[in-house]
């Protein structure tokens, strides 16, 4: 009856990841706010240059990674709370995991595209 489903000890790691990702997202949004207020974008070329600036590109990839990690932890809590039954729960979590991985790949493809930058 005491089967270990692999959830032993996960709580603290998830708690930390959720807080860490939240802090990073807060910092990123504050930074982005400063960037766009101090240097508003005027037109497509300007937009390409701004987004293509390497530090911002890297920070943005990290931002979406933080969003997905933070969102996954939250979503998993919600599913575990409200979706019962091993099969249904597993199916929902699997579908969500695939969607999250897809968004991660999509983010990389968007921000690693050649042609960004000045």
């Amino acid at each position, binding site marked *: *009856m005491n089967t270990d489903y692999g959830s032993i000890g996960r709580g603290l790691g998830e708690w930390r990841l959720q*807080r860490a990702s*939240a802090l990073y997202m*807060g910092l990123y949004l504050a930074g982005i706010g400063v960037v766009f207020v101090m240097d508003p974008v005027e*037109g*497509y070329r300007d*937009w*390409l240059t701004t*987004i293509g600036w390497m530090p911002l590109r890297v920070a943005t990839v990290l931002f*979406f990674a933080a*969003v*997905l990690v933070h*969102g996954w932890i*939250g*979503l998993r809590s*919600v599913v575990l709370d409200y979706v*019962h*039954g*091993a099969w249904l*729960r597993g199916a929902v979590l699997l579908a969500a995991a695939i969607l999250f991985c897809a*968004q991660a790949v*999509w*983010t990389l493809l*968007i921000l690693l*595209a050649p042609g*960004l930058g000045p």
Partner: protein
Amino acid sequence: MRCKKHVKSNNNRPIFLNLLRIRLPLGAVVSIVHRATGLVLLLAVPVVLYLLERSLRGPEDYRWVLSILETLPARVLGVIGLWAGAQHFFSGVRHLLQDADIGVELDRARLSAWLVWAASLSVVAIAAVGLSG
């Protein structure tokens, strides 16, 4: 996988889960809204990614994105998303403070719950005024 079968306890306890008839304290409302706004924000992620991708594709796509953002439905969704983000952010800050044992007393917790609502609505109000020019 439900653990109920293995629990040899009294399963005749009364259950009353009609949320509409339970008067929830503001902190409980903030908590469930924190969860709900989190889910709403997750739905926004693919939308943001799409707009980002499209805006980088070419000058015409860039203009398309800007024009879409100016439509009424986009503005409404934007306001909702902004409120969800602010609400989630401020209740998150409240969570972090309470993790550090700040504001866990009942009167403090009530006050901070009100502040979370006030701060979120202020952000939306400021943004609405600032962006309606």
